[in-house]
């Protein structure tokens, strides 16, 4: 039972997040760059170095930048799949396990498709491009 409760909790969290994300396009133009509305504080306060190694970035941030704030195991749980599809969890998948850098599927300043779409017809409805 405890296990199911956990799924339910994770599920609720995801539905909630998805609701927010799907309600509108989360990519918004800030002063000189597009960014995600759920990171608005960073743009208002011009904290580029929250992710990049410099506050005047010219390069992509390190692969583990997002994990400064996001707990990876929570993401794994939030996108857990039914036993039949257990390996289609984008955060712990058959091909690459937990090793895919976030930006391969998530764009902070631009739209990005999930990389699974290169070969598969999955619909990841919670992914907000």
């Amino acid at each position: 039972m405890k296990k199911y409760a956990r799924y339910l909790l994770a599920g609720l969290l995801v539905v909630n997040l998805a609701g927010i994300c799907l309600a509108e396009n989360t990519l918004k133009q800030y002063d000189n760059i597009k960014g995600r509305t759920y990171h608005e504080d960073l743009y208002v306060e011009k904290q580029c170095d929250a992710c990049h190694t410099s506050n005047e970035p010219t390069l992509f941030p390190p692969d583990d930048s997002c994990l400064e704030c996001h707990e990876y195991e929570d993401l794994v749980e939030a996108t857990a799949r039914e036993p039949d599809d257990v390996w289609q969890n984008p955060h712990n998948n058959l091909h690459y396990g937990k090793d895919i850098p976030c930006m391969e599927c998530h764009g902070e300043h631009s739209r990005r498709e999930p990389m699974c779409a290169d070969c598969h017809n999955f619909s990841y409805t919670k992914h907000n491009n």
Partner: protein
Amino acid sequence: MTQRKDYQEGRRKFLIGMGTAGLAAMTVPVTASAASGKKQTWDLEHEVVIIGSGFAGLAAAIEAKRKGAKDVVVFEKMPMFGGNSAVNGGLFAAPNTPLQDKEGVKDSPEIMLKDQMKSGRGVADRTLLLHIAKHAGEALQMTLDAGAEYLPYLQQLGGHSVPRTYQTTVACGAGIVQPLIKKCRKLGVSLINRSKFEHLLLDDTGKVIGVTLRQNYYFGYDQPGKLVNVRAKRGVLIATGGFAQNIGLRQAQDPTLTAEVGCTNPKGATGEAMLEMLQKGAVPVHLAYIQSGPWASPDEGGFGYVSNYSIYNFPHSIAVNCRTGQRFMNEIADRKTRADAELACRDDTGKPLPPIMVTSYKHAKKHPNCKKVLRYGVGWKFVSLEAIAKKFNIPLAPLKKQVEQYNGYVRAGKDDQFGKSMKKAKDKYLEAPFTVVRLWPKVHYCQGGVQINTLAEVISSMTWKPIKGLLAAGEVTGGCHGVSRLGSCSIPECMVMGMTAARTIMKG
């Protein structure tokens, strides 16, 4: 949280400000001089340097560690590890295995060699193939030791005279790559992504002493990364795979492989490391022999789900030309024979008309991919031949007659139409309900590459001797399979030649 890497701070500005001369001056000069006579400088130093993180690179890393290497590094161009090895069918052919014992299959390295030589159409490399077949069991054991799991039965793939193919339970090469990566990490192998190999560095005697890499390289984005020179104390292994995704290069070899032809490989399979070896004198072999997979589907990208589904089901299925309602090939002939036959399936105007594969649902569902194929709309279930004929616009009478005829072959154990081996089709009659997928070949594998010997040493076209310090293994090498590689023979090749390369390097 792991320690954050801080390798990018102001790097681009630094490059613009100082220029590459400034960058070189920053590095510490260490021993040896380059072929140009200039003093060679090094940014990094490792005992064994491996380029590419597929089966060959990972097997080499593990074997080098087993042989006592202290410092092994694997550099990967892409953001993820595994290359094409992470997205293929996970099919592993080996002779004299425990599963063959269990199933009472009589086999030997020599019988496996004979099958491969036939598919190689006279120009496969007998010595390399026999070396691989003899060590395939050992390589299979390495994957088992690392934790790879296989289906409890063997498959008989096209062109193989006996069932000898293992398949991972996840029906994917990742079922081997993931355990190998874990094993590498456990053994202390450094795995570094976003690092693109650029050049080999040679000393005055022509020996390979290191490589130039781009660190922090973002494939497909405008971030070229920073050039660094890496010294390899014992040797460099190039295990970078094929070039099926390099449209210009593949089309230069085979003009029919235009951008319109699909490809099962990930986007990184572009072959620059092979070209660099050729520039340094390696012998090019069979570059024009580029194989297309006859089991791929036009209804999904890449290798997808259908490829493995078809590979498993071909022995007890029929492939039907939608225009005629009849079979048009031996469904388990070698890959080239089948791909050519499929490409000939055209409508009246000459446009591609992908043929279909018809399987009894009760047999198809035994493969784990069947569910996925149906769920993701890349295959369909039908209650009758009438329904199939209607959906794909196939003349019904010939289709019905064909199925009846084929079931006669199943009963007789002999295919009078195309000479297909009916061993694996025993008692497997075509009966409703059916499942159907569409077939169209996709570029899958480059038989060609650089020439190596059975020690995995790269041969020089200038001296016809091994280039010292340079080894290559896997799809980047050429000649071993000849015109057409048999399915499930690449994984043993990559694993065995990777292990072989590590042994050669560690013998020094």
